[in-house]
C-alpha cells in the first residue's frame, strides 16, 4: 500500500560566516500536554483557566503522606502518540525523580521517565513543500508531570504561584538531531502539532503553553554532519546550546537563526561554544544565558520509590492501535491518489482533520478537484472574511456545498451563478437545488429561448451589428447583452455559438 508520497530530502540551511560556510544541526524536545480530564497522578482537573490553586489535590501540593496513583488514560495517550509516530512501545517502563527546587514545584522533584521511557524510537515525516520532506527520527517519548506557573508581574517584590498545572501529564517527545534549519524546525513543530491533534492526544494549543519546545542548536562545517550520520558519533558535530521553552513557530525560527549566528561568530573568532541553557528574548531578538540554571543541572535522578514499574500488555497496545485514525501522511497521499488533487491542495485540506473531514463529505458523489477548489477558494476565503471563522462553525454544511457543486456538474447553473448561490446559502441557508428552482437561477440551455434573446438584441442594435460584421471581436458585446437580458442564466457556451451563427461571423 502506498501510504506515503515519495519525497526528496531538503538541503540543509547554510549560513555564510565571515570566514566559512556553516550548517545547522537541530534537535528538539517537544513538551505536549496530554489531553485528559484528570492529572497524571491525582484526580484533580486539568481544565485551563480555572481559579488559581483550585485544580489542586493534596497529591499535587505534595502534602506529606500523599501518594501518586497513575491515570491509566494518560498512559494510553502516550502509547497512542508513540504508535502514531511508528515508534516502539516499551511494555515495561519506570518512573524516576528529577530533583530540583523551584517555587512552582512543591514536591521538590518532577516525576519523569529518564531510564525507561514508555515509548522508544520512531519517526516523523516533515513536509517542506511538494515532493520535499525531512524524515526526523524520534529518540523517545516519556511521560512526566508538568510544573505549576509562577507569575512575576503582579507584585513588585513577590512572585505569585498557581499550582493548577502542577501534575498535569506531559509527553516529552525527543527527536534526534535530524533537523537542519530554522524553517524545518518550525515545520517539525507544526507537523508534531498536526499529528497530536489527529491522534487526539494533545490539543496543540501553543498560546496556552500546551505545546512548547526546547531547541538544541549547534553549527558545523559542511561535511561534518554526514560523518555523524555514518558513525552516529556526536564528536563530529559542534557543541550545542539548548534554547528553553519556545511556544511560537515564528520565535523558534528567529531564536535558531540568532543562536546559530552567535555560535558562528564565537567559532570564527577562535573561541569555543559553551554547552549551556539559553532563553530567547523576543523583544530584543536575542538568546541569553540562563546561568542560574547551571548549578541546578545536577538533577540527582533516582527511581521513584512511590511507583512500581509500569507494565502494560501487548494486547492493550494492540487495542489502542486498532483505534488509530487515518494519519495526515496517509490521508494526504489518499487525497492525491484517489481525488487527483495536487500535493499542495491535499496538504492544505489535511492540515486540520476537521478540514479534511469536511472536504470528504463535499467530495462524496462529486468531482474531487472541483470540490477541493470550492472548499479551498470559496469556503475558506469566505470564512476568513467572516471574522476568520472556524470550519466547524461554517454556516454552509458540506452537504449544502456538495449540492451546489452537483448543480454545476449537472449543468443546471453556471460557475458564476454558483458563486451567487453560495453567497445566498452562506447568509440565508437553505437547500441549494430548491433555491435555484424557487429563484429561477437555473441556467437556460433551451436554445429556443436563447435564440429569441439573441434575435431581440440584434433587432435592437442594427448599428452594432454592422460594426460586428467588420470586426468579429465585437461579438463579445452581443454575448454580454444576451447574458444581461437573461439575468446571467443563459448557458454561455450556447450563447457564444448562437451569436456567432446569427451574426454570420
Amino acid at each position: 500500500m502506498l501510504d506515503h508520497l515519495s519525497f526528496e530530502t531538503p538541503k540543509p540551511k547554510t549560513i555564510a560566516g565571515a570566514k566559512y560556510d556553516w550548517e545547522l544541526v537541530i534537535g528538539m524536545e517537544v513538551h505536549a500536554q496530554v489531553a485528559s480530564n484528570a492529572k497524571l497522578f491525582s484526580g484533580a482537573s486539568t481544565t485551563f483557566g480555572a481559579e488559581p490553586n483550585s485544580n489542586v489535590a493534596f497529591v499535587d501540593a505534595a502534602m506529606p503522606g500523599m501518594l501518586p496513583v497513575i491515570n491509566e488514560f494518560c498512559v494510553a495517550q502516550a502509547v497512542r502518540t508513540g504508535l502514531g509516530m511508528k515508534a516502539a512501545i516499551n511494555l515495561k517502563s519506570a518512573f524516576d525523580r528529577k530533583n530540583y527546587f523551584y517555587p512552582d514545584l512543591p514536591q521538590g522533584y518532577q516525576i519523569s521517565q529518564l531510564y525507561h521511557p514508555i515509548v522508544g524510537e520512531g519517526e516523523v515525516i516533515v513536509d517542506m513543500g511538494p515532493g520535499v520532506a525531512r524524515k526526523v527520527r524520534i529518540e523517545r517519548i516519556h511521560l512526566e508531570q508538568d510544573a505549576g506557573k509562577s507569575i512575576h508581574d503582579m507584585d513588585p517584590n513577590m512572585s505569585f504561584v498557581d499550582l493548577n498545572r502542577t501534575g498535569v501529564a506531559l509527553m516529552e517527545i525527543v527527536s534526534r538531531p535530524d533537523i537542519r534549519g530554522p524553517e524545518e524546525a518550525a515545520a517539525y513543530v507544526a507537523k508534531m502539532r498536526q499529528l497530536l491533534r489527529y491522534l487526539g492526544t494533545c490539543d496543540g494549543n501553543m498560546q496556552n503553553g500546551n505545546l512548547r519546545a526546547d531547541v538544541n542548536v549547534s553549527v558545523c562545517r559542511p561535511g561534518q554532519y554526514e560523518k555523524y550520520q555514518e558513525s552516529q558519533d556526536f564528536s563530529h558535530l559542534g557543541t550545542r546550546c539548548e534554547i528553553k521553552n519556545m511556544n511560537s513557530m515564528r520565535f523558534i525560527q528567529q531564536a535558531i537563526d540568532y543562536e546559530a549566528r552567535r555560535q558562528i561568530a564565537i567559532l570564527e573568532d577562535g573561541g569555543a561554544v559553551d554547552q549551556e541553557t539559553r532563553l530567547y528574548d523576543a523583544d530584543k531578538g536575542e538568546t541569553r544565558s540562563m546561568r542560574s540554571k547551571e548549578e541546578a543541572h545536577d538533577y540527582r535522578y533516582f527511581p521513584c520509590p512511590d511507583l512500581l514499574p509500569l507494565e502494560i500488555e501487548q494486547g492493550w497496545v494492540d487495542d489502542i492501535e486498532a483505534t488509530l485514525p487515518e494519519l495526515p501522511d496517509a490521508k494526504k497521499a489518499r487525497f492525491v491518489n484517489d481525488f487527483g488533487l495536487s500535493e499542495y491542495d491535499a496538504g492544505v485540506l489535511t492540515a486540520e482533520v476537521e478540514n479534511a473531514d469536511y472536504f470528504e463529505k463535499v467530495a462524496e458523489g462529486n468531482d474531487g478537484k472541483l470540490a477541493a477548489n470550492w472548499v479551498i477558494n470559496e469556503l475558506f476565503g469566505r470564512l476568513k472574511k467572516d471574522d476568520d471563522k472556524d470550519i466547524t462553525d461554517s454556516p454552509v454544511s458540506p452537504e449544502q456545498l456538495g449540492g451546489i457543486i452537483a448543480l454545476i456538474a449537472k449543468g443546471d447553473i453556471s460557475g458564476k451563478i454558483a458563486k451567487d448561490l453560495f453567497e445566498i446559502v452562506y447568509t440565508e441557508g437553505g437547500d441549494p437545488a430548491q433555491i435555484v428552482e424557487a429563484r429561477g437561477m437555473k441556467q437556460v440551455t433551451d436554445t429556443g429561448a436563447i435564440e429569441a434573446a439573441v434575435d431581440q438584441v440584434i433587432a435592437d442594435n442594427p448599428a452594432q451589428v454592422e460594426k460586428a460584421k467588420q470586426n468579429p471581436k465585437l461579438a463579445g458585446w452581443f454575448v454580454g447583452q444576451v447574458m444581461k437580458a437573461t439575468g446571467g442564466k443563459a448557458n454561455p457556451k450556447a450563447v457564444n455559438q448562437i451569436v456567432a451563427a446569427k451574426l454570420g461571423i
Partner: protein
Amino acid sequence: MSIDIDTARRVAHLARIAVDEKDLPALAGELSNILTFMEQLNEVDVEGVAPMTSVTPMRLKRREDKVTDGDYQEQILSNAPDAREGFFAVPKVVE
C-alpha cells in the same frame, strides 16, 4: 569513593539543607561510609538477575481518568506563609 567537604557542602545546598560549616567534616565522613557500603554491595555479581521492585508480585495501581479531587483552594493555601488573591506569594524569583 569518598566524599570530601566541598561535595558535602554542595549536596547540602542542592537539597536546600542548611548545614553548619563545622558539621561538614562529620557529614562528609558519614556519606563516605554509606558509599563504601554501596561499593561493597556492588561487588556482588548480579549479572542476569532482574532488579526486585516489590516483595510480593504487584501491579502498579491505576486510576480512571475522572476528576475526583481538588476544588479546595482555601485548604491548599492554608499552610502558606503568605497567600494573596488565591496565589501562593513567594519572594520574587525571576530568570
